[in-house]
């Protein structure tokens, strides 16, 4: 067992799979010689050669299309989209092609591509380096949508993604790459080196999709979240002293219905938190699941804390970000209801 940050865990997952399966290849902007702008593929080209790990033109559409084509010819490509904010030119290839190929061909053809892409804010990235577009993709049936919140999960889920015979979009909350972020930007950053989830096995292991993690057990309130917000929610829970159960979804599609439903039926109270903009966001889907399955057990209205419905503003990053204060206010409202 080694101590890894999230980038090292993601690198380790890719290295593990490159070693295990010679059909695995990596393509993307700057992923080759340079090892990626976040260094998530560092050293892989030197070790596995340009035939396995290579740079692409700045063409997200071309990257995903090429990856699909390569998968049809027997390979198992991992495509890096440098920022989730840049994924939109590939949307047609993802939503119309990768997601529908198995279905439309009556099962004759399918694609196994994994699309890795850093998402989320809190790094002073402005509106073009901070977005969380997962809700756009959870609405597309035929793809898996994953977002880990720590190094251990990141490696295990990424290995599952690479081994999956379905297309996967693997969102990496970049604010968590070097350490957990508790939603307090003025406090000194902490690394993963002392965090339990920073303990990552060197070899192969996998975490199944569709299984949420309960990161804090509690009796009074269920908080459903994922990605960076898992840690921010922890801070808010400590601020309020409420005995909350925190569910880290990890996998948005497929989603773990049972963990959500069992927890809310137990606590009778529910808060949903995500960094993405609120309206039409994935939180609305979670609310629906809770409402459909837990209505008679609810003791208070379900609340949602999310990014405001505005582009991620550079100068007002922390006003946009759904930080501990907004979350603790919501917790208090729910508990008082």
């Amino acid at each position: 067992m080694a101590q890894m940050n999230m980038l090292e865990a993601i690198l380790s997952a890719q290295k593990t799979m490159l070693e295990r399966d010679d059909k695995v290849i990596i393509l993307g902007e700057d992923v080759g010689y340079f090892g990626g702008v976040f260094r998530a593929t560092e050293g892989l080209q030197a070790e596995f050669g340009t035939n396995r790990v290579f740079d692409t033109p700045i063409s997200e559409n071309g990257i995903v299309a090429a990856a699909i084509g390569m998968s049809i010819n027997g390979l198992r490509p991992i495509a890096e989209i440098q920022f989730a904010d840049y994924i939109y030119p590939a949307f047609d290839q993802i939503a119309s092609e990768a997601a529908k190929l198995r279905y439309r061909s009556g099962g004759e053809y399918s694609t196994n591509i994994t699309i890795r892409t850093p998402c989320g804010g809190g790094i002073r990235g402005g509106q073009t380096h901070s977005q969380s577009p997962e809700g756009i993709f959870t609405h597309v049936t035929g793809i898996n949508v994953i977002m880990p919140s720590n190094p251990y999960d990141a490696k295990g889920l990424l290995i599952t993604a690479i081994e999956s015979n379905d297309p996967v979009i693997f969102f990496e909350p970049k604010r968590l790459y070097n350490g957990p972020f508790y939603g307090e930007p003025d406090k000194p950053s902490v690394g993963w080196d002392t965090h339990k989830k920073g303990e990552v096995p060197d070899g192969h292991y996998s975490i199944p999709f569709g299984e949420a993690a309960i990161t804090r057990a509690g009796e009074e309130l269920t908080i459903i979240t994922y990605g960076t917000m898992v840690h921010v929610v922890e801070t808010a829970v400590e601020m309020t002293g409420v005995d909350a159960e925190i569910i880290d979804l990890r996998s948005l599609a497929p989603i773990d219905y049972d963990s959500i439903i069992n927890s809310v039926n137990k606590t009778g109270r529910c808060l949903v938190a995500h960094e993405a903009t609120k309206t039409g966001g994935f939180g609305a889907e979670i609310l629906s699941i809770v409402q459909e399955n837990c209505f008679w057990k609810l003791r208070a209205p379900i609340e949602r804390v999310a990014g405001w419905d505005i582009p991620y503003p550079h100068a007002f990053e922390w006003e946009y970000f759904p930080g501990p204060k907004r979350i603790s206010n919501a917790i208090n409202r729910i508990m008082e209801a």
Partner: protein
Amino acid sequence: MAKNQNQFSGGNSLNQLYVPQPTARPDGFNDFSHLHIPDVEQAACPAIDCSPHDMRDLAYGLIRVLDDDGNAKGNWNCKIEPQRLLQGLKDMLLTRMFDERMQTMHRVGKISFYMKCTGEEAISVAHAAAINFEDMVFPSYRNQGILLARGCNLVDMMCQCLSNARDNCKGRQLPIMYSWKKGNFFSISGNLATQFSQAVGWAMAEAQQGGNRLATTFVGDGSTAELDFHSALNFAATYSPPVILNITNNQWAISTNQVIAGGEKTTFAARGIGFGLPSLRVDGNDFLAVYAATKWAADRARAGLGATVIEYFTYRVAPHSTSDDPSAYRPKNEEALWPLGDPIERLKTHLINLNEWSEEQHNILIEEIKIKLKKNYKQAESYGTLKTGDRPDVTTMFEDVYEDMTLNLRRQRQEMGL
């Protein structure tokens, strides 16, 4: 200030939005006399390892082999054995008559939709003849000639169009959106040009694995405007994979003439020049020319020399689809005046000139195909149609979204009572 008047114009701007128009609309006349059709013997045939830089003329000219009298001439005449030509003629005729049969079935309400490739048969059929069966095709929606030339079962194709119990796409796709994995024919999407860039990826994987197959893919003049077209040429130029990038310029994208896709000021083949790709412009109604150009590109790809762009200059005689009426946007007799003729008639004349074929044999062949189509259609319809008889099993409706059915899909299937 008047509406639409730019405050910076001062009333004397030289700028005017230019919206290109086709040569003629329904009330006009177009005999294509504005087209320059080069002589058959004009186009040079470079060696397959020729630098793209030294063969740029071929992107602006027109590679032809059959002259107006049906004789094979010029540098691109690769002297195809008569048996192969005869097979090509049969496959083209089968393609045309298959289309007519299915169009009729649409008219009587048996199928919901159809797309014919009338006048464009040589492109698919000659292309298929010049590559290997193992080569992977990433088709557009008007490449049924490739399926037929590769010997796809007629009943299977008809069942797909009928969305019946034997439809291999399980009733999920519009008619003609075929998928034939055993025939190395990729699933047709319906989203335009997406297959173009995927084919390049497939070919990259072939090179990566040291294989000897090539990928070939088709796009229309209209959809060269799509992002995927640019991505495909860019990746093909960057990685030099064994792929043939074919553009069927049939001049009409539904009602939109190729001038709106940027076809007025240059050729579609010339798009390849900026990427440093060898680019050929070919008479798409000339079976021998399509064959020769494809063969050249295939030999080049298999020699490890990378991709080739080929534009086939042709005319879409058929409506876009059964939902389209071209008389609303182009002159009624335009196709009759198309100067490059009909691909079947031209090859037939050539074979007659070679004493390999006769009008009598041709008429017998037509009758044989008619009987074959009738018999096959009868069998296909016995498996059901979209409206009557057996449809695909409805319980399969929730399958193949993922490899394993997810919980939400299982629950929705239960909710439907299946």
